[in-house]
């Protein structure tokens, strides 16, 4: 199984993602330059954080038109895995692979701190190594991470259980005080209806080693690798 980390002009968390995947999962990983269109060798695509195209116009708005995104759309439509982290999440919403939009934090400041999150979905290939309602900690680093969706879309997201991570306090309480950016319903991360496309503002790749403050992010990459391994075995049996 193989991971790919997309590199847009202005991506700056690509090396962190590459490092986390290589060291945590021990799987093959390669960089995918944004002009590439052949990604058929990859089982999981990671859209990393950063400032693709300098955040010109809107975060992720221009990256969406990079040649690689056509291939990412096909990859997602085939049910293969896609993770968008921070700017990668913004790109996924701009591309329509995930519903809603991310815009300026309500307090207008760039927020850069560790953040508690409550696990809302633990039956996904990305999250099955966490326990339900578990409180974890990932770092945040964004100025435009306020999640918005119109009331109908928001209701659908909640009904379908597409909210995967919610901002909370250390005890797991989802409160306005624990909301770092004004996101609706304290939403920190969501998935598509199929559960194969995940987007989140916090950075799991920066929490994979206790040496750098914690290893809560490890379970995401390890869980996904385990899911891919099972998928590979079942494909082999067919």
């Amino acid at each position, binding site marked *: 199984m193989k991971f790919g980390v997309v590199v847009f002009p202005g991506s700056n968390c690509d090396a962190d993602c590459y490092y986390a995947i290589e060291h945590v999962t021990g799987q093959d990983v390669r960089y995918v330059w944004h002009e590439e269109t052949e990604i058929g060798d990859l089982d999981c695509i990671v859209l990393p954080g950063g400032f693709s195209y300098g955040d010109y*116009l*809107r975060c992720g*708005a*221009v990256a969406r*038109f990079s040649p690689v995104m056509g291939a990412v759309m096909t990859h997602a439509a085939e049910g293969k895995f896609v993770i968008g982290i921070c700017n990668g999440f913004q790109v996924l*919403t*701009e591309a329509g692979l995930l519903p*809603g*939009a991310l*815009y*300026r*934090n*309500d*307090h*207008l400041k760039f927020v850069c701190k560790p953040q508690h999150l409550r696990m809302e979905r633990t039956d996904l290939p990305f999250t099955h190594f966490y326990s339900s309602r578990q409180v974890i900690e990932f770092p945040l680093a964004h100025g435009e991470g306020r999640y*918005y*969706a*119109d009331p109908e879309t928001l209701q659908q997201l909640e009904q379908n259980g597409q909210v995967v991570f919610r901002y909370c306090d250390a005890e797991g309480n989802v409160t306005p005080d624990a909301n770092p950016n*004004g996101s609706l319903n304290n939403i920190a991360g969501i998935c598509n209806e199929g559960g194969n496309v995940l987007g989140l503002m916090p950075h799991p790749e920066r929490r994979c080693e206790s040496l750098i403050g914690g290893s809560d992010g490890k379970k995401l990459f390890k869980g996904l690798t385990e899911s891919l391994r099972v998928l590979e075995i079942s494909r082999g049996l067919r």
Partner: protein
Amino acid sequence: MLYHVQIEITLKPTVMDAQGTTIEKALHKMGHASVDNVRIGKFVTLEIEAKCPDCAKSAAEEMCRELLANPIIEQYHVAVVESEAVA
């Protein structure tokens, strides 16, 4: 014909505009007590070759839907302000 197009993009009225609110508070502090509903947006100008003013407008609106605005959170207004014969 070459047309000049002006496009205003703002957050929808239903979407809270934190920049607008902050600037409104600053204006109040300056003494402009009667100021209300400050909204911040983007202003895009472009030139476009088109057959008619309406053609230029509909082309610009398509650009807004696809790239210039995010219809989930933003609204846009397109004005074709001036046209001139291409020499």
